[in-house]
């Protein structure tokens, strides 16, 4: 007896230009699917298309017809979709209905719609900085479904801008980046996939693809993290920035 391959990755990526949809925050909230065109993916026309939204305690799935005949138009969403300030994350998927286990054949993850898109546009940084009451701690890294946040002790003057100052960045940012990457490894089963993907894209651009996150051997991952942090420091010339500040003060 053997188990099925859990790391199956023969999935096709659905790009943003394959569809056009938006959310309307009215009562009840509506999903406006203006266009879904997956024909160039060359998938069987009868495979099923779904849009799934999820937030902390909420999940909704909307059937969007098939690859050949996608459903468009306005669709009512559950009244509680935006309750309590929820900002659901969405994914569009095509399911192989001929497969006995209903394999996901194509997917677009981290789809942002309506109010979410506005919120996302307002977020200009991969790592937002927020002043906070941290007691004796100078800084603290936290993560939730929207991503990592760097909290800086609000007793420090101009706390929000501190991490960008060369004399602080040189000491702080490598440590923060290292912690983010270690958390991606340690909390691989809890950190949101979209958040994970964003950070891995950044890290990969600095030091090449990451090792297998699920491998028992942690050394390879730690070595890769070292490379990412080194490349980050080199790219942003952190030591030179620090040096200039120190020399200017002398």
């Amino acid at each position, binding site marked *: 007896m053997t*188990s099925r391959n859990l790391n199956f990755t023969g999935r096709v990526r659905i790009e943003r230009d394959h569809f056009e949809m938006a959310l309307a925050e009215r009562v009840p909230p509506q999903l406006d699917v203006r266009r879904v065109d997956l024909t160039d993916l060359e998938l069987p026309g009868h495979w099923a298309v779904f849009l799934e939204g999820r937030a902390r305690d909420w999940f909704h799935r909307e059937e969007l017809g098939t690859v050949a005949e996608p459903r468009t138009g306005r669709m009512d969403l559950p009244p509680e979709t935006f309750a309590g300030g929820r900002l659901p994350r969405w994914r569009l998927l095509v399911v192989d209905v001929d497969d006995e286990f*209903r*394999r996901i054949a194509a997917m677009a993850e981290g789809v942002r719609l309506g109010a979410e898109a506005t919120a996302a546009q307002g977020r200009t940084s991969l790592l937002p900085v927020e002043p906070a*009451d941290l*007691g004796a701690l100078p800084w603290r890294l936290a993560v*939730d479904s929207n991503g990592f946040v760097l909290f800086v002790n609000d007793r420090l003057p101009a706390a929000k801008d501190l991490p960008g100052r060369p004399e602080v960045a040189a000491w702080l940012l490598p440590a923060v980046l290292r912690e983010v990457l270690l958390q991606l490894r340690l909390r691989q089963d809890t950190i949101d996939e979209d958040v994970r993907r964003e950070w891995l894209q950044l890290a990969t651009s600095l030091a090449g693809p990451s090792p297998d996150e699920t491998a028992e051997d942690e050394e390879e991952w730690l070595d890769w993290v070292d490379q990412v942090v080194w490349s980050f420091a080199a790219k942003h010339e952190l030591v030179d920035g620090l040096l200039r500040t120190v020399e200017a003060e002398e």
Partner: protein
Amino acid sequence: MVEVRARRLTEEGVRRFSSYLEQLRQGTDAPRPDELVEDPTCTEPVPCETTFDSERTFATRYELGCYVRDRLQVCGGPEREETITEPAFWAWLAALWFDQICPRDPETGVRSLARIDNYVPVELLTGSALGRSSGDAWGRHVIRTSWLLVERYDGLVDFVLSNPPHRRGELTEQLLGRADLPLCPTAVEAFALLYRTKDGKPKPGAAGKGPGTARRFALIVRQLMRTYDVHAMTPERLLELLPEEFDRFRPRGGQAKA
């Protein structure tokens, strides 16, 4: 029995409750401030016009979740939605039953305080040292998580919530720690098929870190959800996809898929 009209903590109430918890954390013992129950400075009514018995005791988290669910059933529509999505309502309930969810040790008299977001929902803590602190899907709030599981899955989760209210337990940790699991009925039903005994208790060995444990289930099912349309499967079908390490927990007759 002392029935209290459902309320929520005001900003001042949240501040005083958090401050009280911080005092406890630093070792200063004191009774829960009385004003957190009905005082208009610290509390205000929620839209849902129900009541809760402040002296009610609960043997398990499941009993607690069932009681809250039943009490909330008296209202519906926007009043109910506005109440259950209000973090300060859950903070008020935690204050109401604080002696149960954070009891004193009978021998030492000392309270064993858990992380603050077990009592004050994490949404109210943003900007504090404990805000946005974990990847937990439904947060860690003792009462809200118990209610959510009962509300969605009723008797299917009695074994997950079989601990007394002040103990979270490994199965809760695994089921609620993964964003996708508690939102997927197929996954929760498969979880129950694997780890629930007929009398609603966790099977021996379900907790822990070894092969086939709840921890492994959460990890593997999350991977499967990225590959298969798990939401549309039956729980039995999902069990077929699990590898051999789960065989010792599988219901009789259920085997891994070849």
